[in-house]
């Protein structure tokens, strides 16, 4: 089992290297760095903080975009080129194929998180960068798992990417939505407010806490407490398990 999984993971990492993902990441780092320097020239005070905050926020979104784009194109391309069918025709379980893909995508996600965190290490204290980097890695792992799930389920590039992007935006904004739903200003009636609140709360329960991950404040010297950080790590494990099993259920139901 390990051999098949390792082979697929290796092929996925090789694909990432050959698709020049590392160059794209480097160019992104360069552009973000240049933009931060420009804005640093404009700022009068807190120049370092402004540069760091902007770099961290933009790099975070770029990392999520790159991971999602890579995972989706990889899965969809393999499906279109019948490579998935070739893999599945081997004497190996479908779970092995999935584990290989998620492992390969996880390596890409971890490499990106490492590279982006290393960039910020030039500007922020090491402890803060470590927290931020680990948290970003967790976020990217979840994004990778969701992107694979969407690609396997929808099997179309555009729809899979739209679904992943929608998921990411929702996960980042669901807490704000809960706050808004909990403080109604309208006068539609108590049951309407209660229904809306229940729906939003139910959606929030099914979403990972991405809005609490990779906080810029951690880079600026406000490190998270151990319980908060441990909670984020547990959240990552649980969500990877959930999405991974959901993908497997979908994969086992597919006819090739």
């Amino acid at each position: 089992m390990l051999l098949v999984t390792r082979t697929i993971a290796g092929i996925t990492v090789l694909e990432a290297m050959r698709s020049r993902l590392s160059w794209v990441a480097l160019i992104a780092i360069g552009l973000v760095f240049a933009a931060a320097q420009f804005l640093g020239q404009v700022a009068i005070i807190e120049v370092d903080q402004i540069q760091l905050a902007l770099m961290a926020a933009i790099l975070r979104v770029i990392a999520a975009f790159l991971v999602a784009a890579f995972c989706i194109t990889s899965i969809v391309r393999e499906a279109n080129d019948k490579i998935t069918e070739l893999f599945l025709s081997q004497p190996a379980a479908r779970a092995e194929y999935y584990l290989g893909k998620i492992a390969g995508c996880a390596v890409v996600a971890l490499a990106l998180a490492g590279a982006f965190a290393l960039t910020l290490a030039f500007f922020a204290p090491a402890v803060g960068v470590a927290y931020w980097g680990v948290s970003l890695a967790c976020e990217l792992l979840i994004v990778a798992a969701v992107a694979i799930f969407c690609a396997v389920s929808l099997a179309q590039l555009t729809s899979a990417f739209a679904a992943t992007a929608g998921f990411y935006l929702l996960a980042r904004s669901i807490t704000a939505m809960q706050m808004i739903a909990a403080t109604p200003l309208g006068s539609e009636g108590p049951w309407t407010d209660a229904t809306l609140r229940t729906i939003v709360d139910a959606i929030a329960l099914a979403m990972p806490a991405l809005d609490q991950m990779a906080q810029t404040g951690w880079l600026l010297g406000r490190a998270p407490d151990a319980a908060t950080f441990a909670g984020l790590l547990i959240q990552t494990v649980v969500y990877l398990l959930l999405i991974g099993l959901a993908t497997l259920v979908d994969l086992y139901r597919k006819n090739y």
Partner: protein
Amino acid sequence: MERPFFQVPRALLIGLLVALILQLSLRSLNPPSAPKAADLPPPPSANALAITAFGDPIPLAKVLMLYLQAFDNQSGSRTPYQALDYQQIETWLSRILQIDPIGQYPLMAASRLYAEVPDEAKKRQMLELVYREFFKDPDRRWPWLAHAAALAKHGLKDLPLARRYAAAIQTYSLGEEVPLWARQMEIFILEDMNELETARIMIGGYIEKGLVKHPGELRFLEQRLQELESRIKQNK
């Protein structure tokens, strides 16, 4: 065609169910905290908002209004309006109006929500905000000033203030869509202030200039004019 669920390994389905329960439990242990009144920061500058808006400020204004809304609570009273810093509220509302002058939400919030607190100073502050902003678009913003006039009359019992607001509507809101009742508010406030002569002159002016077209309204005003004249006679 997909295979039916029973063909999926049972361990997988059980695992999925367990993972789902774990996720739901984990998230329900960590509910979001409601914002506190003291947490409301000052709004970003207009320039900062222009940069953030990427050339399209109206969606940003709508989001900012919802953000501001998250700092208070009508029914749950976790953060009653009067606990909010009204100076900040005023700045936020003005800033939102600045980037979205067409939007009516900020003035609605000022006149109908933030002004309806038991604190008189805060009430007046919001009414004055509505009054100031009214002049930038009198034909569209009159409903909020009309509500402000009603609040000044009934809530604050400040008839001169109510008259000032009503007079502003009467003088500046001249669009065809502005209803006559809004422009006539000043007359009724004058009656309440016992300034019957001025009210009589105003009603007479309306009728003479032919501003009242609807026969029902005309009849009502003529009747009102007669009542006023008889009250003036009685007072003499």
